[in-house]
């Protein structure tokens, strides 16, 4: 299987031939950042179209078909529109916090985005505490949402922000616990380590029942963490018109929109990392021929494929279910998901120490 680190090593050597080591590292950092932002915006565009097509398909519609062949240019038209729209500033708002909020939301999603296992040797941020880092930075987002709701100085956004705060902080627990359960199985927090540990089979298959429970908890909690239906209460269109970002316009609104779609990719990516082996091809121990064939498919394709598959599941859920109510949402988390998740973590620990997993 092609290891992308050969490319990075070659580039590193090449740069060292021309410039001192500090400059080479800085150049590489800039290149990586450029790649990251490029991938971020391109993926956001792909995701918006993806959502529209899936949603149209589920709803017996055709989705966008008018602009360009098969509606492909629709997204460019939309991006252009949102970029050229006026940014409306309101009276009686805290302007600094009001403008800071969308950037905090985007910051959180870019940081988490950088942790994803893009392919063999394509790990951008690779700590030995990678999983922990993901949990930590992803919770910056809630700060941005709270700020947006608070600084808009509007009753609707305030309710939206308060709902969002309650929801995201609650569901972060479940996401964290299900991540911990899988870390427990992998025996490492390093993202490369978690992927490598799934060489002989993805955790969803090797982890026994606790892994499946953790997967289900993760799907529910990640949906809530992402403010997507059936947990889209913070922006519940039919109750709060647009929730915390009601007062935003132009590109500031666009940033919230962008972050929302990228967060969808991020949670799908983390799901594929923890449960479906990240970029790791499907390996079945003992089937050497099969494994070799699977290895011929590039690792990036594996990762993206899994992420898109997970996204499809999230979209399917979103477009099928009605929205839950705030008390039901909190009850679901604190009465069911978190206790089940905690017990599941203990069970997983027992399974791992006893070696009952595959």
């Amino acid at each position, binding site marked *: 299987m092609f290891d992308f680190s050969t490319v990075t090593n070659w580039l590193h050597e090449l740069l060292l031939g021309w410039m001192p080591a500090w400059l080479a590292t800085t150049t590489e950092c800039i290149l990586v950042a450029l790649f990251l932002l490029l991938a971020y915006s391109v993926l956001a565009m792909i995701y918006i179209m993806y959502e529209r097509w899936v949603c149209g398909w*589920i*709803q*017996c*519609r055709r989705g966008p078909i008018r602009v360009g062949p098969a509606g492909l240019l629709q997204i460019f038209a939309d991006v252009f529109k949102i970029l050229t729209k006026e940014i409306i500033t309101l009276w009686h708002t805290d302007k600094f916090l009001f403008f800071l909020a969308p950037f905090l939301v985007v910051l959180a999603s870019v940081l988490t985005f950088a942790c994803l296992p893009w392919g063999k040797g394509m790990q951008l941020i690779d700590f030995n505490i990678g999983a922990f880092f993901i949990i930590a930075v992803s919770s910056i987002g809630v700060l941005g949402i709270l700020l947006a709701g608070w600084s808009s100085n509007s*009753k*609707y956004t305030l*309710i939206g922000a308060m*709902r969002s705060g309650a929801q995201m902080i609650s569901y972060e627990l479940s996401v964290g616990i299900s991540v911990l359960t899988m870390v427990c199985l992998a025996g490492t927090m390093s993202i490369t380590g978690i992927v490598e540990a799934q060489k002989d089979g993805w955790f969803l298959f090797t982890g026994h029942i606790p892994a499946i429970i953790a997967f289900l908890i993760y799907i529910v909690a990640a949906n809530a963490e992402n403010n997507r*239906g*059936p947990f*889209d*209460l913070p922006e*519940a*269109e*039919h*109750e*709060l*018109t647009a929730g915390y970002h009601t007062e935003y316009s132009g590109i500031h609104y666009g940033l919230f929109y962008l972050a929302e779609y990228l967060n969808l990719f991020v949670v799908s990516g983390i799901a594929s990392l923890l449960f479906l082996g990240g970029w790791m091809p499907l390996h079945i121990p003992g089937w050497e021929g099969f494994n070799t064939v699977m290895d011929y498919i590039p690792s990036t394709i594996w990762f993206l494929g899994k992420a898109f598959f997970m996204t499809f599941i999230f979209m399917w859920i979103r*477009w*099928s*279910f*009605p*929205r*839950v*109510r*705030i*008390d*039901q949402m909190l009850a679901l988390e604190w009465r069911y998901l978190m206790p089940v998740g905690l017990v599941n973590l203990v069970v997983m620990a027992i399974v791992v120490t006893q070696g009952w997993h595959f």
Partner: protein
Amino acid sequence: MADLQQQIAALCPQAQFDTVDNLLMVTVDDAQWHALAQQLKENLHFDQLSCLAGVDWKDSIGVVYYLTNTDTQEMVHVKVATTDREHPMLHSVSDIWAVANYQEREAYDFFGIVFIGHPDMRRFFLRNDWVGHPLRKDYDENPELNPIRLEDEMNEDDTCTYIEDEDGNVKKVDGKVFEDDEYVINFGPQHPSTHGVLRYRVSLDGEMVKKVDVVSGYIHRGIEKMCESLTYPQTLLYTERMDYMAAHINRHCLCMCIEKALGIEVPRRAELIRLMMDELMRLSSHLLSYGCLTMDQGATTAFFYGFRERELIYDIFDRTCGARMSMSYSTIGGVVADVHPDFIKDVRHACDVIESKMKEYHQLFTGNVIARNRMVGVGELRKEDAINYCITGPSGRASGVHCDVRKTHPYSLYSEFDFDEVIRTEGDSMARYMVRMDEMLQSIKILRQACDKFEQCEGNEYIAEKVPKMIKLPAGHWYQQVEASRGAFGVYLESDGDPKPFQKPYRMHFQSPCFNLIGVVDLTCRDNMIADLITITASIDFVIPDIDR
């Protein structure tokens, strides 16, 4: 009826009696009215105030009340008037029939009649700085008096009530709708879930709703006022612009009312066509209400499923009437044109498709655990309240009230058809939703029978031959009710028998079902959450132009 007359005469010896439009009419003075009203409700069980129409008779000004006994479905109407045109005052009956609360506010708005004892005597539709009361015959229409105002309405929190002391002196007491320290949030007039331009002012405690104040009139077009300057065939047009989801049914009602006044017999074929159009309209309305209810709770996909089948019905309207909305199809004496040759085939096809897709709706939404949690037990409306607030239609039947006009006062050809009145007893949002779903099956049943009857029907006369070109009604008043998609729709029509050509109605009042439906928003939503407010209002299912008229 003579029996009833004796009973009422025993209760109130001063009352005068008359029989108008096959109904007993009682005329009493305002002094005896409140006591009589109490007696009518308690002793004679007239527990529902079906219609309240303010009328300006030039020499006097007053109100006509239509009362219904929900056990026997007997109706009686009471006329109460005052000759004091400067400061007309009547006693409020909002403490006896809760529905009178908003109805009296409307009468105050249009006629300037102050109701003594009414808890919240504000205008209902017009701004509080409006000059004059537009439906009075001496109303000054000078546009300079009421220019288009560009500033906000002032003091919208102010309200007042008129209290009568023991000596008969009436005193005005000011009050406030909301206290200063309440967290009041605006829902509407531009809000995705009010389905139009209705506005609630909601007092919140966290996520809990403490009080809802309905502010109406954003789409008020003064249809009743406009009708007074149009000839009868012209007024038909406005019926479709009230509840546009019951366009055929409302128009059918006004046509029947005028036909009743003129004594025109409608050909059977025309009556069958009207009836089928009514039922198609009801199907389309319930499909829309399914879609909106599901979408308001976030299930966007279910919305499209409902709209997909609705398209079949709209195609039928399009082929026969030439329009998808505001069809203008019924007319005085029949319908304007014969149906499309494929009409029966299309109707049968639509019935088959919708019936088969009903299963899909239930699978997608009804059984969903989130949907059930959101709707079961939410916004319960007890049977007594439903009667007291005159909640009719699917919402009333969900609370166990036997109120289907097709059964209680059969009109058109409904007595020939075999169908069930869907009644549930829970009274919650789920029951209201399920009543609509089951009613769709009943409508399909009626439509299938109607198709058979239509094929057997002899003659191809779709409009009565003897409709006069110039429609002139004798002096008098008439009331006609039909079962519209959202409840009992009534037309109160009064004619002064003007002998000149192009006679215009003296007074036309539309008793729209949705007007009564918003009356229970505060009652049902109080102490529920914001999300429940949306669920409850969606399940009550009102159409805003029908409230505002």
